[in-house]
């Protein structure tokens, strides 16, 4: 692994000496500089060798963290190691008998103690397909002065780097891209709880080119994942925190390579309990990691690893401000209630998706490295939710349960009963369980008394069960010290089943598999209401489903991808130029497993479905049968990208670099069908997503000073989005498909660390601001699950990118759910294994996620069909959240015992001012009040919000031996 390689620069004096004389000293010193925390190599660390006060010269480590100083005379030297983001270290080196002294691993401590990025850094919100996806972005590159501080200090407000969506961040394990094949989401939860085993990683930011692939415009992180990369030794930790779960236990053992070349590592953890802020949210999550690796003489290496995070956890839900105010709690969670006097959450994520990979590395020479990884992900991913048939909506914060449904001061709402509003208000304010929480006992009452034991309320489990097979190969060749050529091939086959099953019948005997929304429209047609028409035709009745049975919908997503990529890195003196490109294809299709009564398509012989005298097959505008069962048409996409990185380093720790890239990627499967639950119909305008990104950077690192300044520009064009919402104008599940969404992200990032005269104390600051805006007028196609006819067919979302205000100005519309201005200033103190961190953070310019429906001409026109400037402003303006201040504090210390054991603690206190009024996100409901008195306009439903938690602590105790 540790291929010792000559560095590009050697001591000038020694060089001269080499030319002039054959009597060059043969002694030297070599080694590898690594990050003490992550055990990963530190590239570009500056080493200064001194003999007494005389500087013999300097050298930088290569990409593997290696260095070699040759031609040293015997003697005692001081080797001073410095790297951006690390505390400087001095080691003594003795060269004798003309040998090259191998220092092996020289570890550097990050100058800012990176607080553990863990689940506790962000809440988890699982939302009911309302189009709002809450996927936190984790900044992986802890060595970067900006990311290091931002990743921890900004996580509380769900900061997104440069305003980019989470799926733009590439995350690899052992060289395989792990982003969800169908949604692109960062797959962090697959290894949550395995912090120790996945700590070792390498990252690039922005459009930099990674050794592991071309990536996109939002960085690439590769988690090594092999046992040889897990820090050797035993480690055990106990963690308690108030933000998500009460208790975490984690144990890890990694055996370093033995004489036969074997090494192995095991890790396991449990995360259990609730938290201080959100009732009903809990963890019952476990994780394991098993890895074994064999090394044959540093030429062949084979690693077999399997890991997984089985478990269950309860989710939080967003509510309107009215509900939060009634409960006196911005952390109110509508997902739970009492069953038999005990707390039960209706929204539980139940997952077990183990990952197994086999990685082979071949290193025949110092100049050539090759590797291949075969990785398989499988398992179950379920999410429970209440389902009900012809019974009142059981969600406590359903709008008809709120005072505002009975009384609104604005008479145009036609809500004029203040007495009823008072009854509702009192029930909420006194936290009456049957009003403020899910009433589980009532479900049992209803189901037990239901005719024939038919459950009217049930707990469904929505599954997205993946089978994901990957092959990633790469080859790295260094033809000369100034050139690195890398190439690779990646392939992916994904087959994912989407279905729902019964999790709990709640006291009943069965649930009937019919479409109650279709039943409303086709009450007299037993055919059209069937979710599984083939079963109905075979048995003469709708299917009665029991616990574990699939029902409702069942389809596969199929995806096949292949990609070739290559990069070349060329050094010309202080100038490094890297170019790279990738070219690939992507194919996907849907395959329905059940024939739905509303969209039966054609029979096995290609004939329309005819039952009795009636033809049930329906056709779209193009004359194609609307099909629920069987394979859809296949869509093919060609994907490609090109990148250029240029970097120039100056003496004294200055570095300038610039990156540019152009990317053309296929749309994601989950954003390509108008109503994937029920039919094979694609969005009309399914385009490649095209992005252009560029950034310029200046870095400085010397004498404890560290700085990065970046300016960036990114344009993303032709994105699609599909939101699935309950659409009550049609009393049905609706699908809002948006196409042609363009965004522009322009901004800057600054991170700095400045030492103070007091040893160990430095000032750390980060600042980022930008403008992340929508720049196009997308087209909206709205359909409902139970009707073939679109409600709206490619109508423009006229006010998506801005609102013309009544005062004549125009309000721009922004990419939501992240502060577009974030700053942090803090002090960091490190002395004698103590660290103390304190910082003040400021966030501003965060915006609410927008509903496309209310930004159409239809919504602004209202029932009378007349668009007025007042309606436009009221319906389409975007809410901007208030700015927020935060104060955080951390302290930690570690001790050594008998030089063999190490133990320590870290205590983090977040949001010390206990602010509970900071909105971190939310979304507008795709609902409008349409039965107004005046009949001249609509009103938007109140938006739903997420708030930041108040004061939180996290205490971690650890023990290593």
């Amino acid at each position, binding site marked *: 692994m540790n291929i010792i390689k000559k560095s590009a620069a050697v001591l000038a004096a020694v060089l001269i000496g080499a030319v002039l004389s054959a009597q060059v000293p043969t002694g030297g010193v070599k080694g590898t500089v690594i990050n003490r925390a992550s055990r990963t190599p530190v590239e570009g660390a500056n080493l200064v060798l001194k003999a007494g006060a005389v500087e013999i010269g300097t050298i930088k480590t290569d990409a593997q963290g290696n260095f070699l100083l040759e031609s040293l005379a015997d003697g005692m030297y001081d080797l001073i190691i410095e790297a951006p983001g690390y505390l400087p270290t001095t080691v003594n080196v003795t060269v004798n008998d003309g040998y090259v002294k191998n220092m092996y691993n020289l570890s550097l401590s990050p100058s800012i103690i990176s607080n553990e990025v863990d689940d506790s850094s962000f809440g988890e919100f699982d939302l009911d397909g309302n189009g709002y996806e809450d996927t936190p972005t984790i900044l992986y590159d802890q060595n970067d002065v900006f990311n290091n501080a931002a990743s921890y200090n900004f996580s509380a407000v769900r900061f997104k780097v440069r305003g980019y969506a989470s799926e733009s961040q590439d995350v690899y394990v052992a060289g395989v891209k792990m982003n969800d094949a169908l949604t692109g989401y960062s797959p962090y939860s697959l290894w949550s709880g395995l912090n120790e085993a996945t700590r070792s990683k390498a990252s690039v930011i922005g459009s930099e080119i990674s050794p592991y692939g071309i990536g996109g415009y939002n960085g690439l992180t590769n988690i090594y994942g092999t046992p040889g990369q897990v820090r050797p030794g035993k480690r055990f930790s106990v963690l308690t925190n108030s933000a998500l779960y009460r208790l975490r236990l984690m144990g890890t053992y990694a055996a370093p390579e033995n004489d036969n070349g074997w090494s192995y590592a095991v890790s396991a953890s449990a995360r259990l309990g609730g938290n201080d802020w959100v009732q009903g949210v809990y963890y019952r999550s476990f994780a394991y990691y098993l890895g074994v690796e064999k090394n044959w003489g540093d030429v062949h290496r084979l690693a077999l690893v399997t890991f997984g995070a089985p478990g269950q956890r*309860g989710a939080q839900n967003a509510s309107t401000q009215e509900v939060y105010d009634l409960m006196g709690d911005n952390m109110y969670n509508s997902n739970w209630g009492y069953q038999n006097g005990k707390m039960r959450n209706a929204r539980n994520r139940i997952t077990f998706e183990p990952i197994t990979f086999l990685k082979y590395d071949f290193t025949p020479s110092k100049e050539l490295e090759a590797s291949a990884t075969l990785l398989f992900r499988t398992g179950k991913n379920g999410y429970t939710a209440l389902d009900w048939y012809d019974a009142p909506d059981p969600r406590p914060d359903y709008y008809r349960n709120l005072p505002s449904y009975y009384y609104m001061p604005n008479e145009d709402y036609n809500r004029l009963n203040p007495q009823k509003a008072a009854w*509702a208000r009192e029930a909420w304010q006194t936290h009456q369980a049957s009003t403020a929480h899910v009433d589980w006992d009532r479900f049992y009452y209803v189901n037990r008394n239901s005719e024939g034991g038919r459950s009217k309320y049930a707990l469904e489990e929505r599954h997205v069960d993946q089978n994901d097979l990957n092959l990633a190969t790469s080859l790295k060749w260094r033809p000369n010290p100034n050139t690195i050529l890398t190439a690779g091939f990646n392939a992916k086959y994904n087959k994912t089943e989407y279905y729902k099953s019964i999790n709990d019948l709640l006291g009943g005997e069965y649930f009937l598999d019919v479409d109650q929304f279709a039943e409303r429209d086709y009450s*007299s047609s037993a055919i059209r209401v069937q979710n599984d028409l083939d079963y109905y035709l075979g048995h003469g009745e709708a299917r009665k489903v029991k616990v574990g049975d699939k029902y409702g919908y069942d389809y596969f997503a199929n995806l096949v991808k292949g990609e070739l990529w290559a990069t070349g890195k060329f050094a010309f003196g202080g100038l490094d130029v890297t170019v790279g490109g990738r070219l690939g294809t992507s194919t996907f299709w849907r395959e329905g497993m059940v024939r739905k009564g509303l969209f039966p398509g054609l029979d096995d012989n290609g004939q329309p479905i005819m039952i009795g005298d009636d033809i049930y097959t329906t056709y779209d505008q193009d004359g194609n049968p609307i099909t629920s069962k069987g394979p859809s048409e296949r869509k093919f996409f060609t994907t490609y990208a090109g990148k250029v990185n240029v970097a120039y380093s100056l003496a004294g720790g200055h570095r300038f670099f610039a990156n540019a890239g152009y990317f053309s990627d296929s749309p994601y499967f989950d954003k390509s069908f108008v109503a994937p639950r029920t039919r094979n119909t694609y969005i009309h305008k399914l385009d490649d997503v095209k992005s252009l990104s560029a950034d310029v950077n200046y870095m400085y690192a010397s004498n404890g000073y560290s700085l990065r300044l970046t300016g960036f520009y990114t344009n993303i064009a032709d994105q699609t989005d599909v939101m699935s919402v309950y659409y009550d104008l049609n009393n049905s599940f609706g699908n809002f498909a948006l196409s042609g969404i363009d965004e522009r992200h322009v901004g800057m990032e600054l991170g700095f660390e400045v030492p103070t005269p007091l040893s160990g104390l430095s000032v750390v600051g980060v600042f980022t601001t930008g403008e992340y805006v929508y720049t196009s007028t997308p087209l909206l196609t709205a359909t409902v699950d139970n009707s073939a006819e679109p409600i709206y067919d490619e109508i423009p979302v006229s006010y998506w990118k801005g609102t013309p205000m009544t005062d004549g100005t125009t309000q721009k519309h922004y990419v939501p759910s992240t502060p577009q201005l974030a700053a942090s200033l803090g002090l960091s103190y490190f002395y004698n294994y103590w660290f103390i961190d304190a910082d003040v953070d400021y966030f501003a310019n965060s915006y609410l996620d927008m509903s496309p429906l209310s930004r159409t001409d239809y919504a602004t026109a209202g029932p009378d069909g007349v668009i007025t400037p007042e309606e436009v402003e009221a319906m389409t303006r975007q809410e901007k959240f208030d700015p927020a201040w935060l104060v955080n504090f951390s302290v930690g210390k570690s001790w050594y015992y008998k030089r063999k054991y190490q133990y320590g603690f870290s205590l983090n206190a977040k949001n010390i001012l206990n602010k509970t009024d900071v909105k971190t996100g939310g979304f507008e409901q795709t609902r409008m009040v349409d039965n107004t008195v005046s009949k001249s306009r609509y009103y938007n439903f109140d938006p739903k919000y997420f708030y930041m938690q108040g004061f939180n602590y996290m205490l971690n105790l650890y023990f290593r031996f």
Partner: protein
Amino acid sequence: MKKIFYSIAVILSLVAVSCEEWEPVFGNQGEPDVSTPQTQQVNTTIAQLKALYDGKPLHIDNDLVIGGKIISSDASGNIYRSLYIQDETGAIEVKIGNSGLYNDYKPGQMLYVKCQGLVLGNYGGMLQIGTDDPTGEYETAYIDVKSLISSHIFKGEAGSPVTPQVVSEDELKSAIKLGYKSPYFGKLVTLNNLTYAKEIFVLIYLNSNLDKKASSNRLFLSDQQWGVDTWAFSANKMKEYLLSGVWNSAKIGNSGDYNYGTVEDAFKVLYENAAAYAVSQYFKMPGGTEVQVRSSGYAKFSDQKIDSRILSGDSRINLTGILTNYNGAAQFTLIDLDGVKITN
């Protein structure tokens, strides 16, 4: 070393502080007990309560408690947001304004209503228990707030369903004469030997988003059958009727103001705004007394074809359902189609 274990012990003891947060972790909630019926001491009969009504909404301030067996169900969707209860003295509509009431309230089950704070009112000749409607548009408003229901409505013990009372034509005539004071209204009754009168009544709005009172926005289908052979119609069924042309000659507008063309002229707007509508299908008692069987367009049986033997007038039927009164006309509300029996 000791320090660490001591600290772990401290943490674990802290962790155990809140039991409630661990309940979902262990997930052992167990099934709730079978709930026991709620009972209330009845101090007023339904007839006594109804007798208190004197022509205007009565806000009940006394602690009056009535009790009766549930005689209706909204399972078919024909009765919506209401329950009828009946005791030995009479029956009354309780406006519990939720959908899917049949899930919680079963025919034959006792229901108690604590009337204090509620309002007794009249709608078209039917007395109802509801809550205050401050707008004055109706005499009562729906009891639909959860806490309002739970503090006034109590589910009693289950029991056998009430046997419908056979009402003769003479009794029906006198009930119509008596209006809301008649004990028959609101009761579960059977009317025997009716024949189809080949006449319907339905009021359709061209665009329900516009002024519903405007003559130009109204279409009455009345005085004949208009080809409507279903109990009512859903939006899809309305489209079928429109497409079939059976309504083409019907005139838009209020009676005496037919200046807005015909259905044929307004086809497009009617088709686009098609919705579910309630229909009155007219029947006659043997002595000629008219009974309007009024069914909701949202009833599950709304689009079901009425048996052709009934439509042709060849067959007589017995109807079982809730006898209602709408502005002096006998209306009949089917609970479901089991209430229609062909006698010959």
